[in-house]
């Protein structure tokens, strides 16, 4: 056993975990700011109808921030669920299964969301058109 390492008299993680913690902190800080933007956007978009929403997405700043919010959110929420699952599920098999499931759902949701946002930002034709049906 190597000696425990200390930084500012606080014991430093010996294996891993501090990196994850740091990512979670950075992501949450970004999301707190973006959350305010989401609230303001929701206020703008409420009652603006289809055309209003399309106009909103035509603004590149809105599209980029929406995409950023989506990616950072699902990155954060997958770690947040990991923390919760690790707190309550102690059977290795169940834990791995749940963690895998959370990651798959987050990845799929991010991919679908980015796909929609890119199409909306580019003003593509309504959807079934682009899927080859």
């Amino acid at each position, binding site marked *: 056993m190597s000696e425990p390492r200390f930084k500012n008299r606080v014991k430093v993680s010996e294996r891993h975990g501090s990196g994850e913690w740091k990512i979670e902190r950075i992501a949450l800080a970004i999301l*707190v700011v973006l959350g305010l933007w989401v609230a303001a956007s929701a*206020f703008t978009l409420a009652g603006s109808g289809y055309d209003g929403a399309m106009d909103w997405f035509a603004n590149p700043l809105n599209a980029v921030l929406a995409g950023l919010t989506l990616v950072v959110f699902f990155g954060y929420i997958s770690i947040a669920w990991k923390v919760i699952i690790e707190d309550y599920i102690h059977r290795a098999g169940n834990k791995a299964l749940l963690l895998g499931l959370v990651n798959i759902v987050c990845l799929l949701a991010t991919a*679908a969301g980015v796909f929609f946002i890119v199409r909306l930002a580019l003003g593509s034709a*309504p959807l079934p058109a682009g899927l080859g049906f």
Partner: protein
Amino acid sequence: MSQAADAKDDQTGRFAVPGKPRPLSPHLQVWRWHVTMLASILFRVTIGAVSVGALIVLGWLAALAFGPEAYTGFLTVAASPFGLFIGFGLTVVLFSFILNGARHETNDLGVGLSLKTANTLASLCVWGPVVLAVLFWAALFATGRAVL
């Protein structure tokens, strides 16, 4: 507590010394409720609720990407009493996420951990979301963006 003394099926790791289980840490049943504890639990609840909320937002994106017809369908559901109820809930969750996120980040920096400040921050995170959501929806109705 049937599993209390069952070392074979134990998931808590308190049987490190065979035959001498270490006591479990106190849990919800034995702790005196405190506002910091409530804020912490509500943040976990918020994490769950915001996950569902994100999927609803994803549904909104999909409806918009599938064109005017699908979007009208989405708006019809959103404007119904049930839809408005869900919408109100989503704003509570959003504000809870923002406030609790800010509280968590503040405390993670080692700031605001004195008893008085921690209590104040926690109270803000428990009641703030409801107050902000009510104000948000009052503004929506006042400006005609939402109608009942």
